[in-house]
């Protein structure tokens, strides 16, 4: 009976919402998949972040729309101590959490919410550390936060201090990342009191530009503009995610006017979508890199000249044409051109099979047999690894290197490619998390990553010293210089063949105004309007 009453109330409320919003501006986004949940921090997938952290939450600092530049968010300002170990954040006052059918906040956002949001991730004794069975904080752990953060202190209601174990220049950028979204401690208390902690992941409450209305699993997510948003009310009234997993179907829905924006079009559909007079196609170079990593600890790939010679044998243009179908650009550095500190002065290894062959012979390499690993999945930085491996196989054959292509199931691939004695070279890539060069250079090529995320197993003292120093320096110009030098060392030593940076396409209805593509690959709808 109680359930029936609740149902009636919900029906009345929803009918009122629908009737009241008969002329509401509703933006429909055909998303590519279902979110795993609505609490951001336990997850690592972009699809989940698009549906949770972007519309619903804020962070202490944010990335400025369309850039990877860090700007104030829930913290109005911050100071870094001389020794780089203490970050003090001055919190914004008057920030309201969402008022929804399941929660009415009695207070504004304050330091308790910040402490709650981070303590639950770093403190195993925290009552919310494992609030549903199996929950874990993989992004927080993956970014080495437990080792980096020594303590988080509430100075007063609107001041919070992060104390670090070592100086870390990318710290502020890290706090703009999705896992650092701020959740309501008051809402958490309400859920604890009612014994329904799991609802934090199903009925979320944040301070973001949109509030959560309803989720029909695997079908539709509904949001409403947050009327009391500290950044001002949004131009649209409602936001709807229509979950459409198939790219061809997303394209059809866009053409039929069933959605306004649809991400990740099929490469083959791009021309057709561009030709549709009701649509516009935005494009941007992705913050990513696709590469072939040699195992620099195994002969003959421990010789930089051999690696360099092989790089000269790869016809990148053919790969761009066949694999990226024009939706990519050749990579010469391990970071994409849109990232600050990109060293444009570096000259790429020219495609020259004859010179490559001569170099290999000069190094005494003949009749070389090697493996090239092809990823079994499609990724933004490599839409078809098998095809790419075949092209590289043909290129290497021209210089007398016999390639055997191997592949494993994705999890196996990631695990086995870390092995120090791995045979051959692996195709892999990376999409940036926070727009900081450290997130590429140190993570993928630092000595700490050997046996892990450094698939080239490459530990170069000169390179490592440069990136480690850049981590401790807070002056942007000095950091830029250090990273530029690191790229010179990288190019000279050639632990990878840098293949390509992909272009990201975003088709949308002409009615959509003010959409800005995110270089970090997310999808944001704050500030977006619709022509009625």
């Amino acid at each position, binding site marked *: 009976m109680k359930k029936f009453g609740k149902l009636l109330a919900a029906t009345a409320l929803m009918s009122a919402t629908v009737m009241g919003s008969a002329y509401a501006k509703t933006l429909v986004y055909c998303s590519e998949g*279902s979110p795993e949940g609505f609490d951001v921090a336990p997850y690592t997938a972009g699809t989940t972040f698009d549906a949770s952290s972007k519309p619903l939450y804020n962070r202490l600092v944010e990335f400025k729309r369309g850039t990877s530049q860090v700007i104030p968010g829930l913290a109005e300002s911050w100071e870094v101590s001389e020794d780089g170990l203490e970050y003090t954040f001055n919190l914004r006052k008057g920030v309201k959490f969402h008022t929804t059918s399941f929660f009415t906040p009695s207070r504004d956002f304050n330091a308790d919410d910040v402490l709650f949001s981070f303590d639950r991730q770093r403190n195993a004794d925290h009552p919310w550390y494992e609030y549903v069975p*199996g929950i874990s904080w993989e992004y927080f752990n*993956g970014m080495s936060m437990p080792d980096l953060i020594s303590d988080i202190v509430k100075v007063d209601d609107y001041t919070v201090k992060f104390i670090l174990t070592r100086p870390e220049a990318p710290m502020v950028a890290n706090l703009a990342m999705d896992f650092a979204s701020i959740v309501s401690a008051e809402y958490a208390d309400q859920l604890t009191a009612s014994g329904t902690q799991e609802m934090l992941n199903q009925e979320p409450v944040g301070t973001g530009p949109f509030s959560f209305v309803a989720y029909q699993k695997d079908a539709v997510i509904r949001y409403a503009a947050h009327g009391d948003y500290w950044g001002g009310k949004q131009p649209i009234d409602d936001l709807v995610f229509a979950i459409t*997993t*198939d790219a061809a179907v997303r394209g059809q829905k866009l053409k*039929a006017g069933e959605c306004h924006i649809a991400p990740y079009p099929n490469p083959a559909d791009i021309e057709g979508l561009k030709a549709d007079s009701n649509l516009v196609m935005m494009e941007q170079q992705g913050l990513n890199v696709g590469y072939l990593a040699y195992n620099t600890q195994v002969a003959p790939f421990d010789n930089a000249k051999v690696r360099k010679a092989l790089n000269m044998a790869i016809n990148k243009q053919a790969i761009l044409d066949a694999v990226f179908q024009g939706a990519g650009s050749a990579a010469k550095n391990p970071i994409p051109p849109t990232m600050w500190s990109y060293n444009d002065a570096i000259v790429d290894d020219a495609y020259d099979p004859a010179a490559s062959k001569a170099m290999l012979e000069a190094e005494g390499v003949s009749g070389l047999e090697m493996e090239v690993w092809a990823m079994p999945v499609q990724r933004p930085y490599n839409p078809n690894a098998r095809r790419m491996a075949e092209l590289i196989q043909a290129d290497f054959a021209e210089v007398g290197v016999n390639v055997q292509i191997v592949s494993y199931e994705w999890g*196996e691939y990631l695990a086995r490619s870390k092995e120090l004695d791995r045979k051959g070279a692996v195709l892999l890539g990376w999409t940036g998390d926070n727009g900081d060069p450290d997130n590429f250079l140190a993570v993928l090529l630092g000595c700490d990553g050997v046996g892990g995320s450094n698939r080239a197993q490459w530990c170069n003292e000169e390179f490592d010293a440069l990136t480690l120093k850049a981590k401790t320096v807070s002056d942007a110009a000095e950091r830029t210089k250090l990273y530029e030098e690191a790229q010179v060392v990288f190019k000279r030593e050639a632990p990878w063949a840098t293949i390509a940076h992909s272009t990201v396409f975003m088709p949308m209805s002409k009615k959509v105004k003010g959409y800005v593509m995110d270089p970090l690959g997310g999808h944001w709808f704050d500030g977006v309007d619709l022509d009625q």
Partner: protein
Amino acid sequence: MFKFIISKLAMIVPTFFGITIVAFGFVRVLPGDPILALAGERGVKPERYQELLVQFGFDKPIWEQYFTYLVNLFQGDFGTSIATKRPVLDEFLTLFPATIELALCAIIFAVLLGIPAGIISAVKRGSWFDQTTMGIALAGYSMPIFWWGLLLIIFFSGTLGWTPVSGRISLLYYFPQVTGFMLIDSFLSGQQGAFKSAFMHLILPTIVLGTIPLAVIARQTRSAMLEVLGEDYVRTARAKGLGQMQVIGVHALRNALIPVITTIGLQVGVLLAGAILTETIFSWPGIGKWMVDSIFRRDYPSVQGGLVLIALIVMVVNLTVDVLYGFINPRIRHQ
């Protein structure tokens, strides 16, 4: 009859245990690792990997994991999804009505078209109708579902604009789920146009999912009818001077339906398998799509829970068909 039902039920018990073993073993034989799948390119440190192994219970011997799984299963606990952290049974029950609704519509579509087509083909054996229908049925049977679905979308939704591209109802309509069946819920909501929208959204997925069962039922009906039409009692009925409709409808069809009903029962498994692709094409939020996602994520509890639940449903449907068959054909229940 009671004995017959009990004997059928008794067969279900070992089958159920067999299925739990297969479901439990199947996901573990698949290459891949749920923890690595969870971590993605960013990877996971070895010590963290160990922690997670313990947390998920994967550090225990395989027999112990199976035993725990079985004990939990009998307490109605199908485990918690690694990806969504929600109980597997909750997820399944949330999505199941969508699949049932689609499967029911597909089977109704297949039966309503398949049986008459089969009858007419048998009666007019060798005619242009028979040859065309059976040709189409063969094509329908061999049609790749994914291609067929996309083709219908491009033609009916894209070019003609008659049907919506995907989903269960227009996004304009918004009401709470009461039964989970969109046709019923949209009707109950009282919102103008909601029922029509739900119906229009069902048309293409129903055709796509119903195509193979339609082909099978039409062919089965035709061959069963042909067999029956040659029987002595049909000849006798005709000799008695009964009308064509009476001979076919009363004497022939009732006997020909027996194998057809078995075929319809067997199609339930086919429908659930076909639903995986159909749901993916039409963004239909049912269990098929959920299973595919779970397999990709190596979400052990969801995959094994889903397999056991689907198998249970297929077993129950087959049991029902067997019982029904017993009612129709007394020879079976007395065997």
